């Protein structure tokens, strides 16, 4: 009996030691990450099946999946699936706050403006108390769809939903500027506002970098305008602007991209290739 108990204790200690050692060893090993986290897309009906028929759970699963994609640069086909996940989440739960917020932060910048506007439009309808979806919808209309008049109208809808008078007036003023098609750094301001409203540090950093890129582009555009005014033609590159003293230094793109000036004077940025 004692011998049997001794053997059992020995096995128990051995198992505990083995388990502890294995956990300790694994904790230092980096987990392999699949490159194709967003390679598979299930149609909405299959997603519902996976969520036990619960549309809200299906929406949450979609949104968690978009979180897993992170803020790094994805392949075009991955952005395609990301956009569909956001659209599906909006179909299941149009008021999902994280869904509209993350969709607005990622999709339009990857060329999926229609999907972002669908998500934001659904959120605007189902969240009448919330000014953010309308504000972000207006931003996309202004910045991506180049429709300042419609954007100003939506911005006024957002303003009407704000209780704080100062913020409401600030948005009304911004809407007035948009009606006048005034250029400015309001786009960057909206991104910084979004960054301030999240507790997700990765997203906040991503949005702040986007805002910094817009600030840099605005500075180059102003310098290009001054060059055109003084010399009558356009500079060929940003470094030319620096050499001629129109810019104190070449702005650094926070995403590592390279600036260029097109023949009609538009400032563009070529994304850094991996």
């Amino acid at each position, binding site marked *: 009996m004692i011998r049997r108990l001794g053997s059992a204790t020995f096995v128990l200690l051995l198992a505990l030691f083995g388990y502890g050692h294995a956990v300790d060893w694994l904790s230092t090993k980096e987990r392999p990450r699949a490159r194709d986290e967003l390679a598979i897309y299930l149609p909405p009906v299959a997603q519902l099946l996976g969520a036990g028929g619960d549309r809200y759970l299906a929406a949450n699963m979609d949104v968690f999946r978009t979180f897993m994609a992170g803020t790094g640069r994805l392949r075009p086909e991955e952005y395609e699936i990301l956009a569909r996940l956001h659209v599906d989440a909006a*179909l299941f739960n149009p008021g999902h706050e994280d869904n509209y917020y993350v969709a607005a932060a990622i999709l339009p910048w990857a060329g999926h403006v229609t999907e972002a506007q669908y998500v934001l439009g659904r959120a605007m309808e*189902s969240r009448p*108390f919330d000014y953010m979806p309308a504000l972000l919808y207006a931003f996309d209309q202004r910045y991506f769809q180049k429709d300042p008049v419609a954007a100003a109208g939506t911005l006024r809808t957002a303003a009407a939903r704000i209780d704080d008078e100062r913020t409401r007036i600030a948005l009304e003023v911004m809407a007035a500027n948009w009606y006048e098609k005034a250029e400015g750094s309001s786009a960057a301001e909206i991104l910084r506002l979004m960054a301030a409203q999240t507790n997700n540090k990765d997203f906040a950093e991503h949005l702040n970098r986007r805002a910094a890129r817009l600030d840099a582009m605005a500075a180059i555009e102003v310098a290009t305008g001054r060059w055109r005014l003084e010399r009558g033609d356009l500079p060929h590159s940003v470094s030319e602007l620096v050499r001629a003293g129109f810019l104190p230094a070449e702005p650094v793109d926070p995403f590592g991209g390279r600036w260029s000036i097109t023949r009609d004077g538009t400032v563009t940025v070529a994304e850094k290739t991996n």
Partner: protein
Amino acid sequence: MLAALRQHAVTAWKSGLRGRTFHAVFVFALLLLTAAWLAAAFSARQPQAVALDVGLSGIRISMTFLALIWVQELVGREIERRTVFLVLAYPMPRAAYILGRYLGILLLAAAAILLLGVILLAVIQISAWGYQYPHALKLGWPYWATIVGFFVDIAVVSAFTLAVATVSSSAIFPLIAGAGFSLACRMLGPVLDYLSRGAEGDKELVRHFDPLVSTIRWLIPDLDRLDLRLWPMFGTSPVPDAFLVSVAMASCYAALMLLLAVHAFNRRQFV
């Protein structure tokens, strides 16, 4: 009849509370509520709303399992093991057995959902994860109305499973049928919504499935209509008429299932 009904309900209540599977599933429900607390940490802007959302899904899923298990243990297994003979030997109508057991299951479900509802409220309170939510959740009447909606949902699923149990000779079949039924009924609403919005432009899909789903909607109740969680989460109050009619639809369906169950049980030959 009433005395017999009460006696069966009390027996179901006591046996239901004693069941080991019930304890295991209840622990599973508590784990799901812990998962709701953890899920809140993933949220970018709405930790407490995510806790509420995932927690409500957890309650709905675990309550479904609980109801299925109670029907299986309190009716299905008694039929399978023939212990139901002992009950039928007493001079009381067979209907009292079915309706009494159903009433007992409803009482158990009401107590469990109430307890889980209170626990979820506590979980939400500790799920802010250091972030101030931009708008307050509505955790008063809107929250409890959602819980009531879930209870009606569970009552329908229980009635259907009970009806299957009265005609089935295996205890596991009602469990599978009930789970499939709850899945189909909850999916029906979102699928109808998806098709009515054009299925993301897939006209072929709409053409093929629209007639089929339009037929199914008459055969099974749209339980998604009883899910009111947009109210506590975002303040979107339900259309009162639509909700009341949905409760009436669910109650009528449950009554039909109970009638079927009683009819089948009365005619059943136990040999």
